[in-house]
């Protein structure tokens, strides 16, 4: 029977993988995938916390569950805008690598 700690470890792992992906990978699309992974890590631990800490009435905490829906929706909006910007960037520069973003330099 998995406990709260198991879920939190998986969620922490997802967050770490996402963060490392953002910091280490050079392709903007992969970086973007890492960012989405970080949001999903938060979703997983929110649902786990709400399931394992029921309120006074014995039901799972509903505010976290509602929050998860908002996070999913916002993540979708972010992807829609983000991919549009990346496509526009690719059209202008024929690249999706961060090293090639060097127009603005000190």
């Amino acid at each position, binding site marked *: 029977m998995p406990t709260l700690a198991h879920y939190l470890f998986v*969620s922490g792992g997802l*967050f770490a993988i*996402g*963060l490392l992906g*953002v910091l280490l990978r050079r392709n*903007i699309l992969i*970086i*973007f995938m890492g*960012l989405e992974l*970080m*949001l999903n*890590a*938060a979703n997983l*631990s*929110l649902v786990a*916390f*709400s399931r394992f*800490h029921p*309120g006074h009435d014995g039901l799972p*905490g509903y*505010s*976290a569950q*509602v*929050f998860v829906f*908002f*996070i999913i929706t*916002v993540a979708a*909006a*972010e992807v829609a*805008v*983000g991919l549009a*910007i*990346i496509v*526009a*960037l690719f059209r*202008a*520069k024929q690249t999706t690598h961060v090293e090639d*973003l060097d*127009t*603005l330099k*000190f």
Partner: protein
Amino acid sequence: MAMISALALEICVVCVGIFLLMADAFYVHLDKRALAYGGIFGLLVVFAMTFFIEPVPKEYLAFYADDSLGIFFKRFALLGTILTLILSIEYAPVVERFIPGSKPGAGLGEFFVLPVFTCAGLMWMASAADFVMIFCALELVTISFYIQVAYMRKNQASLEAGTKYLILGALSTGFLVYGITWIYGMTGQTGLQKISGALLFFPQASQTALLFGIGLVLVALGFKVAAAPFQFWVPDVYQGAPTPVTAFLSVGSKAAGFVVLMRVIEPFLAVPVINAKLVAALQVLAGLTLIYGNLAAMPQTNLKRLLGYSSIAHAGYLLVGVASVGSPSAGRAIVFYLLGYLLMTFLAFLVLIPVAKAAGGDDIAHFNGLGRRAPGLALAMLISMLSLAGLPFTVGFLGKFFIFEAAMREQHYALVAIGVVTVACGFYYYLKVVRAMYWQPAPADAGPIEVSALTRFAATFLAALILIIGIFPKPILQILP
């Protein structure tokens, strides 16, 4: 007299935005600038409505705070958006050159409408008292800023700035959400009031996890307000973005970030063990931001980039205020500073846009000899720069003075010392602009600088306010929350 609920204000702003989008879609032959004038008019009406507010019903208070701080920042957001739209009208020819379109003015409509939606997000942020609401409002602001920063699709600098802002903004969202998760896990609540209750009820509720959560939220808000060491996106994004968006980003986004920061840390400051650590963290952030922002601004030659670094430096002074929030006068000092920051930053950008348009670039060198070419513009820029630097008899000086006073009361002597030294650095780089305007010869081929009547009116208004509030701050201080 008919009274309206504060909840209606944001709904009205969103309706104005949707109406303008519809007008853009259905009246094909409309001059797009009419949309901006419509937006300014609509927001002015909403601004007038903020003076006839009745308290919201009790059921809403758990996630919507309509206290005087919230109402003040709603007015602040509306004023900022109106000024942004004035800047956008002036800047429209530049945008038009850099967006693909078969007809003249195609694609310009959204440039005037997006700030209106951002304004609704900023207003919701001003009242958000629940982490779900804070998250949604923050994302409404951030996502619409992604589009605005990357708006000029044929300009590589704008696209690049948009991509950088997208990645770092989304990263800070990830930190924010994960931090909120841990705060929720330890307290079982998302509403700030209920969190405060839960914290007082179980003061020992696993401190490490709670501190981890607050730390992540602090990192995310540090990104939003441009605090060092999370400031590295600021110079690039500020330089690459369309100039009106830069102005809006530096004022609106920062102010909303500080409101949320003040609201979020309040419940945690009530717990003595967390209080000490949180204040220490804020002090370190403030010190780093002050030093980095001011030192890095000194060698800059591009004015937009310089204003980006200056915006980091001002975030540092505001963070000194947030770190001293235990003192009763700190809240008012922060609000006063933000008000002054709005006035002087928008004034600088109101001068920058016509000058950059005439000179073809926004380096400090393009301001050479402005004192003789356009004395009015140069005078406005002079007032703005002196106020940003903090010369007495301007609003910038009083803002810094109140912040330092609050910090002295909380005995943050080291921060005040850093603050005073960095103010001196500030004089150097702000006066570089003044020197270029008055002591450098104008280039031989300099053409005349055209300024629209609306811009001239707005610039006069802001410059007058900077001086009037700087000399007679009493009436303004009385109406601040």
